[in-house]
């Protein structure tokens, strides 16, 4: 059985494979870093590191040809390569303790990074002074929310990711026999006054009596957000309930009825609801005396979680985030003449893994080099 295992893992344990993967990783980091200037950090992460392959298309062709393995592929191969190397060359010996701990730390780091990249959730909560929210919103993703408000105490939300919306697409919703028909979709749109249209034929969606959404190119700028717009119809049992033009830049729910039930529909930044709420009590933007140079940003918030009778104040400031229910709230921004705070909300189930793995690798190195040092010193003493 052991020999079978070794035979299976041997080709995977190839050192040549490691070298090729590391070389590819260097190229990937290099081109990803260069492209990051054009497409921003978020898009570069998606395209280069949270992907299986990098593709190029021949001019005039829709065919995508892979030319370099992406981060997931390289990380996966390196992980298998490292595990295989241990299985096929594994010899239990005190002399190898350091290497074993070091490599275990490296494996843990690779697995931790994988878990982070799959389960990490990044969002923001923007609060005006005195405002309370029980949700945060994605700075990148949008959702088309269809809200069934017929319940006495709760609303039921059907959330369709904006990435699913495309012109002409029909989407069956898992509720009440509803089908969403996408009549038009702009990946990014600007809201302008209806009188600012160059002509009536210019592509636009009328999102209100005073404003129209016009398509604009996708933005990759760090301080800008893509704001999709869509024209959608809802169909129930073959009958059209209504058609609406919606824009994420103006996320105002539109109310309608489907049979006896009251509903609302809205295109908005994707929301992450929490079982607790946060209220901004005070935001401070302290400056050095006589200057406009920022000295300190802090948000005093009240955290209320009725399920565990939690009701307390917390002060969030630089390097002092609030950690609660697996989430970390960092001070990230401000606005509205210092009356509004923006908190970055991170959910990362494996946030401790890099600390543990780095500790393991450091320990492994110390043990390995320590053992070499001791044996070297001993040899010198004997000589």
């Amino acid at each position: 059985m052991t020999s079978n295992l070794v035979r299976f893992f041997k080709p995977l344990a190839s050192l040549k494979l490691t070298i090729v993967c590391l070389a590819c990783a260097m190229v990937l980091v290099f081109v990803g870093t260069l492209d990051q200037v054009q497409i921003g950090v978020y898009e570069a992460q998606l395209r280069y590191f949270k992907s299986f392959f990098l593709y190029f298309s021949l001019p005039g062709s829709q065919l995508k040809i892979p030319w370099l393995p992406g981060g997931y592929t390289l990380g996966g191969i390196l992980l298998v390569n490292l595990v295989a190397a241990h299985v096929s060359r594994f010899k239990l010996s005190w002399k190898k303790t350091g290497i074993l701990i070091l490599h275990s730390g490296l494996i843990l780091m690779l697995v931790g990074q994988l878990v982070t990249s799959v389960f990490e959730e990044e969002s923001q909560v923007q609060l005006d002074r005195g405002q309370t929210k029980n949700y945060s919103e994605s700075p990148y993703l949008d959702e088309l929310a269809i809200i069934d408000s017929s319940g006495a105490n709760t609303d039921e939300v059907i959330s369709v990711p904006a990435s699913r919306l495309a012109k002409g697409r029909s989407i069956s919703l898992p509720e009440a026999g509803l089908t969403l028909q996408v009549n038009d979709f702009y990946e990014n749109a600007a809201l302008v006054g209806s009188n600012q249209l160059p002509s009536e034929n210019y592509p636009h969606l009328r999102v209100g009596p005073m404003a129209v959404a016009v398509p604009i190119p996708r933005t990759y700028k760090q301080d800008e957000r893509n704001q999709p717009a869509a024209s959608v119809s809802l169909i129930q049992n073959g009958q059209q309930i209504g058609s609406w033009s919606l824009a994420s830049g103006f996320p105002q729910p539109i109310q309608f009825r489907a049979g006896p039930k009251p509903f609302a529909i809205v295109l908005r930044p994707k929301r992450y609801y929490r079982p607790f709420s946060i209220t901004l009590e005070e935001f401070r933007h302290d400056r050095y005396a006589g200057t406009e140079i920022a000295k300190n940003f802090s948000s005093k918030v009240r955290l209320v979680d009725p399920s565990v009778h939690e009701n307390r104040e917390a002060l969030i400031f630089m390097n002092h985030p609030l950690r609660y229910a697996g989430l970390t709230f960092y001070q990230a921004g401000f606005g509205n003449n210092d009356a509004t705070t923006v908190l970055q909300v991170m959910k990362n189930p494996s946030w401790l893994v890099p600390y543990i793995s780095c500790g393991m690798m450091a320990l492994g190195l110390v043990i390995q080099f320590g053992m070499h040092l001791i044996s070297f010193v001993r040899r010198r003493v004997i000589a």
Partner: protein
Amino acid sequence: MTALFVHPGRPAVSNGIQPGGLLLLLSAALFCSSCNQSKIAIYRIPKESVAIETSSGSLVPAPPAMLPKWTVPSEWKEQPLSEMRLASFKAEGSGGQSADISVSSFPGDAGGIESNINRWRGQVHQAVLDGDSLAQTLERVTVDGVPVVLVDVQTPEGAEKPDRVIGAVLRTADRTWFVKMTGAPAILQAQAENFKQFINSFRFPNQPEASDESVGSGKAKSTNDK
């Protein structure tokens, strides 16, 4: 995917499993887990009123987080909200006439007071006016420390379908608020006093002072910005 590993009659491990197969399996697992973001989700949330719903992503121009307080004249009936309306009312008069009153709000200067008032003028077939001529047709007051421009414009004499717009544009530090009453001239005349009282009743919570930093930007700043 498992078919790659099945070779009947031989033990699974020694049957020529290709290393590529294992990599493929790992890739598939990764791929499936990364699909989560594009799934349609259903969830229940505690009921929230539409008025509280009107917040948005941190870096997008947004409807107001907090509505001003106002007192609605007793003759006005609330109407269902639609599209961009933050409040909607109807006032009924004699002979089946009715006036439609709406409140809406946009970040920043919403394209400028002048262009918006000229758009209202266009709706009652009045000519577009430039700065000075337009200013002469407007009345300026202050409500709760907020500058307000009042507009009253109607279709030219002899119009086939007489129409009138009485409006108010309120400019707070970071937003522009539009209150508009439309309908036949007679009913609007009867409701003009109510409209004025409605505007005077506006009270804005946590009204920040106007500054270049916030006016018209509609954006939050990062604490990392220099």
